[in-house]
């Protein structure tokens, strides 16, 4: 991992997993940190929210703003994970974070708590389930 990573090829859009190998989204963009007197360095991986809309295009940003009624803060639903939290880089990237603590997972948690788990059978074991 030390001799250079092709950020665009290996990191951008790659599937990210947390400490427990659960999917936490995709690397939607990367941020450089500018430091006084030192060269800039890749500091954070960003997931979800407006960041992703912007990458798709202006039309998506507008659509998203329309959908949220213009009330969305710029970093709402965006997870910022320090690059240093990267634990392994292969077909997927494992980050030393916990899914439940990420802002981009708020929708998942909200749905699970307020909708899915109120329907009977959501937590029951599936027949022949393997995973």
């Amino acid at each position, binding site marked *: 991992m030390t001799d250079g990573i092709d950020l665009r090829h290996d990191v*951008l*859009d*790659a*599937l*990210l997993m947390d400490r427990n190998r*659960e*999917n*936490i*989204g*995709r690397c*939607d963009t990367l941020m450089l940190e500018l430091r006084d007197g030192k060269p800039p360095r890749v500091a954070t991986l960003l*997931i979800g929210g407006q960041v*992703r809309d912007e*990458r*798709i*295009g202006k039309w*998506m940003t507008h659509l998203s703003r329309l959908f949220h009624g213009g009330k969305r803060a710029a970093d709402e639903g965006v997870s910022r994970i320090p690059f240093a939290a990267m634990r392994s880089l292969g*077909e997927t990237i494992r980050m030393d974070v916990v899914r439940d603590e990420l802002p981009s997972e708020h*929708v*998942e*948690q909200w*749905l*699970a708590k307020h*909708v*899915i*788990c109120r*329907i009977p*059978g*959501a*937590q*029951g*074991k*599936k*027949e*022949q*389930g*393997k*995973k």
Partner: protein
Amino acid sequence: MKKWAEVALGVVTSIGGFLEVGSIATSIQGGAQFGFQLAWAVAIGTVCLAILMEMTGRLAAVSGRSYVDLLREHMGVRFFIIPLVAVMIPSFLVLISEIGGVAIGLQIATGIAFQWWAIPIALVGWFLLWRGSFKMVEQGTAVLGLVSVVFLVGAIKLHPQWNAVGESLLPSAPSHDKVKYWYIAVSILGASISPYLYLFYSAGALEDGWSLTHLGVNRVTAGLGNVFGGGLSLMVLVCAAMVFLPRQIGVDAYEQIALVLATPLGRAGFALFLISLCITCFGATLEIALSGAYLLAQGLGWPWSENMKPANDARFATTYSILILLAAVPIAVGMDPLKLTNISMVLSAASLPVTVTPLLVLMNDRQVMTTHANGWLGNIALVLISLMSLVLFFVAAPLYVLGGG
């Protein structure tokens, strides 16, 4: 021995999964208006689907990741939004049509108008997705779907000139109603090569835990399964050609379509047609709802699996729930299922380029495919399918306006 059971099951799944509202409706329209002449469209559609399924299955078995997953990663989110929308919209329309297919089958069987059936069908479907595992959804509907072998029996009993059927496997130009002919040809292709089919297949390979050892199973399942499945679709066309064409019966409603097996097999044929229609459309309903959820979840990196409890993949479960329930609404308010089927098949055909062409890149990426990348034969096939999909993209809308509706 276990491998053989797996192969047999895979083949059955492909056969059972092939026939659905689109292939039944388009094959019957084709047969009723042009006899055996459009058999080639069924054949080409079948071969293309077999190739695409083999490749997406191989991709999943080798890389351990689904086609959609890799599509997003390699093409980026800006590109990914195009196949996402281009597959989601036609798939949703096909989903409505499938629910419509089951509803029409139940209407003819019970006399209760199809509108009333839409919501109950969606609820039963949703319940099975909510509670069932991937294996149950995949194999349950496939094994029951084998009832559609009745079309083969029907075709044999009608004593068609088999050599004429065989000759029609080569494309030929029509002598009358040229626009209608090409319009139905495009519909048949769209019905056979639905994107949801290979996206579902590639996700299914992962749900079933495929690895390199499954490459053989994949080849046989995709190859043999689709040849048998496409064969059944061809038998539907043959039945329609023998029953409707000589009597000059045009088919513009499902009530007429339902008579296709009554001539060779009597009342039992009529009943078996309805059972086949309901089961195959219901199976496709489940598969399409899941495909939509796979597409979104894999593209955006959510947790997903039909084998997980809904509480652990909430967005995935929410997506298929919304899709299946929302799709029941147009049928419940009385939208004509057959008209909708026709539009969906044409749109489906037009959407092919955005999922077929990127496959060419992925199947040749040695980092992903290692030594199992496409050979020259596979690449030629894929280039030809891509070119055909581009043609379909450009001709679909004009043909629908001029020949369909």
